[in-house]
């Protein structure tokens, strides 16, 4: 079991190897990647900003809770920070288990919980040069000021 905020590209093959063990018959992996479009706008890249000590604590808590709920120690979660280009992996979750259903259930539970509670934010950079903080998968146009101009003070 290991969790980390990382500044360099995530090595997927290393994660797969890390959770592998002779008692496991199933390995489930989820990778979040930077895509080229959101809410109809063309995305250039995403800046991931974390409240690092709390995000690390929450990631570790998620892995522990998933380990208890789904009965496996073979869990690795890595989340990138900093600027990511299109196609780069922002998060990777690998879970291995003797059986496939709990492996897949755990992976899904972790990504949903991570999105709900780990203090990480994304500033989308658009091809037109503007930027905007993303709220719950949508850009933060409604309900708060538009942040096109914003510099990220924690980058």
């Amino acid at each position, binding site marked *: 079991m290991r969790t980390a905020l990382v500044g360099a590209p995530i090595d997927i093959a290393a994660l797969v190897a890390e959770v592998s063990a002779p008692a496991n018959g199933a390995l489930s992996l989820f990778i979040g990647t930077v895509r080229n479009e959101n809410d109809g706008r063309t995305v250039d890249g995403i800046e991931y900003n974390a409240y690092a000590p709390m995000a690390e604590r929450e990631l570790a808590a998620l892995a522990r809770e998933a380990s208890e709920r789904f009965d496996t120690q073979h869990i690795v979660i890595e989340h990138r920070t900093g600027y990511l280009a299109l196609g780069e992996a922002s998060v990777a979750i690998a879970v291995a288990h003797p059986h496939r259903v709990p492996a897949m259930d755990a992976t899904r539970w972790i990504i949903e919980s991570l999105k709900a509670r780990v203090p990480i934010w994304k500033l989308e950079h658009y091809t037109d040069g503007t930027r905007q903080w993303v*709220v719950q998968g949508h850009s933060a146009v409604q309900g*708060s000021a538009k942040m096109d101009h914003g510099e990220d003070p924690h980058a």
Partner: protein
Amino acid sequence: MITLDVLLFASYADAAGAGRVRVAVAEGARVTDVVDAVRTAAPGLALPSRPLVAVNHRYAKGDDPVGAADEIALIPPVAGG
């Protein structure tokens, strides 16, 4: 009175123009008192009615007590993954 540097992130930091805001609250203050003090100190921040607050890297409830040694942060809606 105790003085606290409340951490701000992402859209909150942009709206406040800074990554932290200094507030003074009474001894024995609760999380809600800190939030009220931030509203006064940084009116441009336009916080929601009940913003998420972390105390020492854990999500806190409104009536949790805070002290001068605590690390307090306002947490905008998270968007990791």
